[in-house]
């Protein structure tokens, strides 16, 4: 059967008939309709629910205190993450400070994701994966062209940096605003001599949850880790859910985990209280 699209009315009917189709990779609107609402979270409280396609990206502005969760249902997701202070986006994730201030290179529950301005943008609250990487960043066009023969966003092997550039552009940001990123669900380790070894995934069904400590622009690119040795462009779906929560405060373990971290949260609260009045 061919579609009847030879008049505007027919074309409108044809378009409208498509709206109820579904895909494995789509936003769920309203968010409460997500078929994958996290256990223990009231679906009615969800403010963001989405499955990001392999080789896809997403972006969102969330409020301070928002809890957001990344799920790797197949064990092949790789969530490359960038964070910006939504109020002043030139404040953004600083990987060096994120490692140096807690004196720890390997990200896990309790780790603060710091800006270059002495504040916490987000805190990792829970982590069932433990396979993450803050050394290798995401893939560039040159890297993917060499490895997969393609890198363009509309092609079979999008580069993470190209996807970040698209997400950034939708918030008025440019490639100039893209610092190094961190990645979740595909790990890497550094040996005594500095050698970086890809350690891969912890398997299907792991999740990482974060608290937004300031209003954030979140950029996510779901592309293979640059050191993934598999010759094919291998990446699985990435699920994102978010719901309202509270910023990390004096009663939380992450707040008191070290004197450096306590001062980072104090700086964050100080900024927010002056700014928000």
């Amino acid at each position: 059967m061919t579609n009847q699209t030879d008049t505007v009315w027919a074309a409108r009917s044809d378009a409208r008939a498509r709206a109820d189709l579904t895909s494995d990779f789509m936003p769920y609107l309203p968010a409460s309709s997500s078929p994958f609402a996290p256990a223990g979270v009231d679906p009615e409280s969800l403010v963001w629910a989405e499955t990001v396609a392999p080789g896809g990206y997403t972006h969102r502005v969330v409020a301070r205190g928002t809890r957001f969760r990344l799920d790797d249902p197949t064990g092949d997701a790789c969530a490359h993450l960038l964070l910006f202070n939504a109020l002043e986006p030139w404040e953004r994730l600083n990987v060096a400070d994120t490692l140096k201030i807690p004196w720890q290179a390997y990200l896990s529950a309790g780790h603060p994701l710091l800006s270059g301005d002495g504040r916490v943008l987000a805190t990792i609250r829970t982590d069932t994966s433990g396979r993450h990487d803050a050394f290798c960043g995401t893939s560039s066009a040159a890297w993917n062209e060499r490895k997969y023969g393609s890198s363009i966003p509309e092609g079979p092997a999008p580069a993470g940096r190209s996807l970040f550039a698209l997400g950034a552009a939708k918030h008025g940001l440019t490639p100039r605003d893209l610092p190094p990123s961190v990645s979740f669900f595909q790990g890497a380790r550094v040996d005594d001599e500095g050698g970086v070894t890809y350690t891969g995934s912890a398997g299907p069904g792991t999740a990482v949850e974060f608290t937004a400590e300031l209003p954030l622009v979140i950029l996510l690119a779901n592309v293979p880790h640059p050191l993934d040795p598999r010759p094919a462009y291998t990446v699985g779906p990435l699920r994102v859910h978010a719901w309202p929560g509270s910023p990390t405060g004096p009663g939380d373990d992450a707040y008191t985990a070290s004197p450096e971290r306590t001062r980072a949260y104090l700086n964050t609260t100080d900024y927010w209280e002056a700014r928000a009045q």
Partner: protein
Amino acid sequence: MLDWSSPLSDGRVVLDERVEPRASWSAVVARGDTLTIVDVGGNQSADCLIFDALDHDERYSVPDTITWQGNAYVRTGTVLRSGSGAALMTVTANEIDRQDTIGGACSKESNTLRYGYHTHFQHGCRENFLAEGQKHGLGARDLVSNLNWFMNVPVEADGTLGIVDGMSAPGRRVAITAERDVLVVVSNCPQMNNPCNDFNPTPLRMLVTRKETAA
């Protein structure tokens, strides 16, 4: 003890400048020229950003440099790459075991986290980068991850990492050759709270040499 040393590359000296302790510096290094940085007093961290001289969006990237070589440390032969993977400069000679690119820069703000609020009034590398960058139209958005020449940041097996005593000494040098025309911005780290410069900032000498072409 100060050792001003000499270039670590053959050729005619086309630039020879001294950077005061705690101060910033920048210069355009032409393609094919080699910049020698001399650690005059020893264990003085030279925090460094590199930009394509004509396209400042094309700039040094720590993760790309690490990924392409599969190693977190910078040594002779390391190609210093931009976020698009392009080669900006190559380390062509190096007189310490390894150079750091994971420790990042200090700032007024991050120093309050590491050492307490009493350090907030002190000058930092981020401040040097902003001040020097403004001479070239660069702002906070252009401050990305950097190199730290002569600084030592080991990563332990459990992921513990931090800045420890350096492996440098007075007069030790590193030479980096420009793969294209690049803008090099350096902060001669002002740290007084940190073994990255023995708690005592000392000068640097910056030498650019140009290979003589055969007549």
